[in-house]
Structure formats: structure tokens, C-alpha cells
């Protein structure tokens, strides 16, 4: 197989994964996500605007640069230097394996393996007003 063919197949595969992932994310149910949030996230993160707990608030996290919430000083250097700007895909990748996406990060969380649960909780976070 020529390298151009391999590249094309890889690109198609990546695109298909992305489409599937986006479809899953798009199908997230915020009502279910509220339960997932309570089970997985709520001890350390608040959904109230501006309220920090052990972690920064997740209200308004979409579009926020990682490690940039001004009223929270508990970020690791790794998080601040990650260059991440949070969107659905970035959050999905991060909460599926936090230590892989931000090695050296402080968040003591092993990750949420279930894609549907991730989509639901992301939908919930996005729904916060």
C-alpha cells in the first residue's frame, strides 16, 4: 500500500471516529448528565457561577482556556501550560483519561470510560445557565 493510500485511510478513519464521537456527544442528555455529574464530579466541582471547590467551577467552562479561571489558584503548571481551550471534544477526551491528556495534572480522577455518560455530563455542563 502506498503511503498516500495509508494516509487517506488514516484520515478517513480519524474522520469517522470524529463523526461517531461528535454524534455521541451531540446525543448527550443533560438530564442524565446531571446525575452523572452528581456521581462523578460534584464533590470537587460546583456548577454555580464563580464557585470553586477543590477544583474550579464548571459553569461557563466551554470556551475557557485551561487553567485560566482567575479566582482559582489550585491549577497545576501542567494544566496552565496545556494550551487547551475547552470544547466538547476536549472535555470528552480529558474526562475519559485525565492523566493522559494532562500528564502532571492535579485532578485525582481515573476517568469516565462510558462514552454515553461522558456525552450526557458534557451536555449537562453546557446546559448550565
Amino acid at each position, binding site marked *: 500500500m502506498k503511503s498516500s493510500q495509508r494516509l487517506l485511510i488514516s484520515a478517513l478513519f480519524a474522520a469517522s471516529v470524529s463523526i461517531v464521537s461528535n454524534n455521541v456527544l451531540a446525543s448527550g442528555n443533560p438530564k442524565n448528565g446531571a446525575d452523572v455529574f452528581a456521581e*462523578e464530579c460534584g*464533590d470537587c466541582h460546583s456548577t*454555580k457561577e464563580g*464557585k*470553586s*471547590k*477543590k477544583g474550579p467551577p464548571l459553569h461557563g467552562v466551554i470556551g475557557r482556556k485551561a487553567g485560566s479561571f482567575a479566582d*482559582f489558584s489550585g491549577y497545576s503548571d501542567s494544566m496552565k501550560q496545556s494550551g487547551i481551550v475547552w470544547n466538547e471534544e476536549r472535555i470528552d477526551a480529558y474526562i475519559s483519561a485525565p492523566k493522559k491528556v494532562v500528564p502532571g495534572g492535579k485532578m485525582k480522577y481515573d476517568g469516565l470510560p462510558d462514552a454515553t455518560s461522558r456525552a450526557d455530563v458534557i451536555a449537562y455542563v453546557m446546559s448550565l445557565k
Partner: protein
Amino acid sequence: MKLLRLAGRKTLGRWLRIPNTLLAVAALAGLFASPANALPSYARQTGADCASCHAGSFGPQLTPYGQQFKLSGYTDSDEKGVKIPLSAMAVANWTRTSKANPDHPENFNDNNNAALQEASLFLAGRLTDHIGTFVQGTYSGIEKKSSLDQMDIRYAQTLKLGESEGIVGLSFNNNPTLTDPFNTLGQWRFPYTSSDFGFGYGPSPLVESLGGSVLGLNAYTLWDKNFYAELGVYNTPSTGTLNALNASDAGKFSGVGTYGRLAYVKDMKRDNFSVGLFGFNANLQPDRNDLGTSNNYRDLGLDAAYQFLGNREHIFSLNASYVREWQTLNYAYANNEASNLKNNLDQFRIAGSYHYNQTWGATLGLFDSRGSSDSGLFGASSFNNRPNTAGYLLQADWTPWGKEDSWLAPWANMRLGIQYTGYTRYNGGSSYISGTDDSGNPIDRQAKDNNTLSLFAWFAI
């Protein structure tokens, strides 16, 4: 924790001959070792609500997040400014027993008593990035005295070895089982508050009876989030130190007391469980004026806990423990206090609770302590020379605050509750000897006469 109370007064006191020794420890455990709770100073420090660390929004029943906070040395924070690690707590109650109690506390009635049972001040929170405290000084409105109640000063940090990591720490403390992160052992098990006008829950092993009378240094780890191990060494302070702390004297250890704990814990977020082993060994010389011969106590226990948290609307928990104590009573036997050189004590406890919306709670508990027949130790209080005591506890409670949006959060918390203790067996059977009349004849009292109804109000700021 009221583990030895009056059953202890009538049995263990004689057992050790010296009323100010283990009897005093029993009284200390019963009267002064007050329950600790969801401290608002921790909530202010972490930004977390009480409900994050405690099932039902009020302590001390910990969630995995609360266990993590404790094991991290009470140092987790929201990293916002300086936090003052001070809190206060008060418990007031009204108590009625089925039949008046002739052995009631001084200055109170023989029944239907209302009291400010205790008021506590806490130094509780982060002192440095790796050092935190849980120190409680308590004024007893029953005994009209103050004492250093609980002390747990910790150093903790995260340690990484290769791909695995864990929390490792040291605790300087004054009570075996105070350091434990689960709600199955002596200090932290249900009931989390109980009336000092009640009749306790039967005799307890030594490991649960030393609060305030010892000082210990424990090393512990929670490794890979699953494996908990703890090893502690305890000694008895001098009488001068105990007097300075207003603490009771259990006697003097010969050598040191050793405490060990192993547990496997699994947090699956939606629910969690733990299973474990614990042990304690000490040689206690009960009379400091008569050193040289000691009573040996070897405790070995099993415990298990399950907690369903879900989305926190419906929380269920089940906590259970069993302890066997092997006693070799060299001192008591030599002084004709005990009829047997060797005795055993078995203690079983279980409690299941349900909380709705982190506000409404209901708990059912069972207690059962059984010991060897020993006429020397128990003959004056038991018709069959046994200390056996068993019964049940029912509690309903309301915790209106303690959530993220609660009124006065994170500055105050409150629990109001009703608790009923029923006895099926007390000091050996369905009836026991509660004392002697003027002619020296034993006074017969039914176990059910001790059934206790209590209303309580528990505040923390």
C-alpha cells in the same frame, strides 16, 4: 461514643478493681468522647458542602471524598485565601427511660432530663500544605467539666512509586480508631450521638475504651486508592499530663499498645465498599500505685461497609463490625477481682441507614456484646455472671442545611433527631442486678426498663 456507660460501671469497674482506671476510661468514652461531625471549618476550607464529605449532610459518616480529605491530613483546600481552622459544636437533648434510673448523673433527675450535653471547640483544618488537625476540646454539661476530647494531628502527602501512587501519612492522636477513615470501628460507628442519660451498649473491647487516656503515633497509607494500612504505637501519658488535659486515667501500659489495620476499599463513584481487619494489643497495669502485674488485652476484629450514593438523592449505607477480645487478667485475678485468669469478649455491631435528599435520615442499628461468665467481675451486676448486653437502635433525623445552597452555608449546620434504644438483654439477661437495697438484697431490674427515648439537637458552626 457511649460504649461502656452504666454496664461498664457495673462490670468493668469491678473487673479492674480500681474505679479510676478502666472504669474512668469507660466513663470518658461514654460521657466525654463526643461525636465529631461535619465541621463547617472544613467546609469553609474546601469550598465543599458538608454533603460532599458526609452521607446525610452531617457527620461523621464519611463518603469516599470525605475519607480522602481525612487521609490527606485535612489539608485539601479551594486555594482561596487564608482559612481560620476553628469550629464549634453543641449537642442538647431530652431523655426519657422506661423506668427511672437510680444511678443517674449527679445534679439531674432520675428521669426526663433535658441538658446541654456538650459544647466543643475545634482546631480543625489545614495548618500547612501537609499538616492538618482535628482537635476537639469539650465541655460536658453533665459532668460540668472540660477536657481534651479528641486529637488527631496529621502529616500527609502523596507518594509515587513507578506507576502507582498513594497517600502516606502520620497521625499523632489520643484514641485508637479515631484515625480510621471508615464508619465501622469504635469512634466513628453509629450511633453518632447518644444521650448520657442512657444505658450504653454493653462492654467494649479495650481498643474502643481508651479515648483520651493514651497518646499514639500512627503511620498509614491508602495505596492505589484501594489498599489501606495503618500501624500505631500507643502509650499512657503520665498522670501529670492527664491532669493537665483533664483526661481520665486508664492506668499504665506495660510496654506499648500496638494497633494495626488493613482494609481493601473500592470506590465506584455510584457506590463503594470496604472490608477490613483490625487489631490491638496492650498490657495494662490498672493501678499506678501497684505496678508490676498487668492485664493483657488482645483484640482482633473484622469490619465491612457498603454505601450507595448514586446521584445523592437516595443514599443507603451498611456498616458492620465484629471484635473478639482475649483477656489474660493477671492483675485482676491475682487481686481476686476476677474469678478467671482468662476471659473473652465478643462484640458485634451493625447499622443500616437511608438518607433522602441529603436531608431526611433513618437508621436501624443492632448491638450485641457477650463475655465469659465470671462471678468475680460480673457477679454483683448479673444473675448469670455474664456482661451480655444486646438491643437495637432506631433513629430518625432531619438535617435541613449542609448542602451547597443551604442557608448559612458554609457557616452552620444542624441536625435534629429522635432516637430510641431498646434492650433485649442487659448485664447477662432480660433482668439484672442494678444494686442492693438497704438490707443488702439485690435489686432486680429488667433490661427493658433501660429502654431510652431521646430527642436531640446538634449544631455546628
